[in-house]
């Protein structure tokens, strides 16, 4: 195992047996990957690609059929490993009768946060996720976005070294999603490792250092974000004061080197960027999360 790996997976296989006759369904097929410490790692793939199953194996919720998984040097699923992990499941659902503060406190107890620092940790987690104002309301009254944020709070209350987030911004408005993104970046700055499963590719591209793409239980692609997104043999030039004459001149220069001008297009910002820029400007510096 490499010294810098928060998660090390080697030859992971998971078969589900369906029905009494035991027909096998292979959800993960020989997966091997390594998540470096102090990074944000994106785990991507279509529905049924084995992402959730892989996460569950790392968390000890499901046992692997074959292969080896290590989390921060400990066997995946062991109590020692789980003590260092914070987990936010997809579409989280929590005890409706508890208030936000009680919920986070409950999970802090489950993670053996010492009583002398527990209240401080709870307050910090609520503050970080912007849930301090709503902390004393019952979880049953929370909106979807608030549930995601209180879920994030419970995942980080015990200051884990590794945080695993399954669709953390699903159902959250863009401002809220941006706020969560800032939280993840701040966690990386503090030396934490984050594993992020998301269908929002724009956010993954923006936040993650490395990504892995799964399809039908197999690893299709893995590497640094910049590295995998670059087209090796093409370059993008952004030119100001463009004119037709300049185009002819550029074509001629490129032809001299055996290159060809394929297309000329005006650069675009993404709708999300535009949305965030305009609304942040409207609400003032820093952008208040509603």
């Amino acid at each position, binding site marked *: 195992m490499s010294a810098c790996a928060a998660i090390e997976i080697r030859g992971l296989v998971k078969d589900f*047996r369906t*029905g*009494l*006759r*035991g027909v096998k369904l292979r959800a993960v097929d020989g997966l091997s990957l390594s998540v470096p410490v102090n990074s944000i790692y994106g785990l991507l793939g279509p529905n049924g690609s084995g992402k959730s199953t892989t996460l569950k194996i790392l968390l000890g919720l499901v046992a692997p*059929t*074959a292969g080896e998984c290590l989390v921060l040097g400990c066997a995946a699923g062991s109590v020692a490993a789980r003590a260092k992990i914070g987990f936010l499941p997809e579409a989280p659902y929590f005890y409706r009768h508890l208030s936000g503060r009680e919920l986070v406190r409950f999970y802090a107890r489950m993670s053996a946060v010492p009583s002398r620092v527990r209240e401080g940790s709870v307050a910090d987690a609520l503050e970080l996720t912007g849930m301090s104002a709503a902390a004393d309301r019952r979880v049953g009254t929370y909106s979807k976005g608030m549930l995601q944020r209180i879920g994030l709070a419970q995942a980080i209350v015990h200051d884990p070294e590794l945080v695993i987030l399954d669709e953390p911004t699903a159902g959250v408005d863009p401002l809220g999603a941006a706020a969560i993104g800032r939280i993840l970046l701040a966690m990386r700055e503090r030396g934490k490792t984050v594993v992020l499963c998301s269908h929002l590719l724009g956010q993954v591209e923006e936040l993650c250092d490395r990504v892995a793409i799964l399809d039908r239980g197999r690893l299709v692609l893995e590497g640094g974000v910049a590295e995998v997104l670059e087209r090796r043999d093409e370059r993008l030039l952004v030119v100001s004061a463009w004119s037709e004459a300049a185009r002819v001149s550029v074509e001629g220069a490129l032809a001299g080197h055996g290159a060809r001008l394929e297309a000329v297009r005006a650069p675009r910002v993404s709708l999300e960027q535009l949305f965030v820029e305009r609304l942040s400007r409207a609400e003032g510096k820093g952008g208040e999360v509603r």
Partner: protein
Amino acid sequence: MGVSLKSVFVCRAVVAGGVLVVAGWGLSWVGRPAGEWQGAHQPAFRAESLEGVLGQGALLGVFGGFRAIMADFAWLRSYVSWERCERAGCETFMRMALTLDPGNAVFWLDGGYITAFDMPHWEVRTREAGGRLKLDAVVVRQIKGEYARRGLALLSTGAERHPARAAEFWERCAMICLNVLKEPERAAEFYRRAAECENPKWYASLAYANLLALELGRKEEARRWLEAYAEKFRRGERRDTGRIRELLDEVLREWGTATPPRTVRP
């Protein structure tokens, strides 16, 4: 690795069953005193004893473990039939209550009395078709005798099941013999049995003595028995729960005179 789900399930079921059998065997010595107590105090259940009443909800009582409460409901239901003078309904629900919870002495006591005193009148009324016919006196006596014998059988069984309250059962048997069967000798015998039980009613011994003396003409025998009975109280061989000894002494003083004693009838 090609282990089927079925074989895993079977293996686990076998292991779990084995653990339960071993644990049960090991724990059987802990639960034995309680199990034996239940066996001694709960009647052995036979399916045939419930024939005829299963459709009345006894099934719930038996299989739901609510025998006592189902018996109580059955008894209350029999009271409803009693109010309506319906012999069949009353008898059916009484039988159900007795089968489900024979540990309730009230069922036997009241059941015997209702059978002996009330049911013959309902039977006669039914046969007389509400007054349109008139049964012969002999037939009426036969009906009363039959139900009186059934009542006595119930009370005798009850006395065996509830030896601590046997005195009450024998007293009721005596009343049936005296008032329905008109057999003072049998009544006297039942009163004697009642007097010799634990916790007898104060009048049981006196009723026996009076029946012997007045109805059967055996006064001397009655006086000797009464003296021997009173002596047991004087010597402390019997516990006096209700001034019995005082009453016995008073009656014996009266019997010492020429005039016959006051009639003491319960």
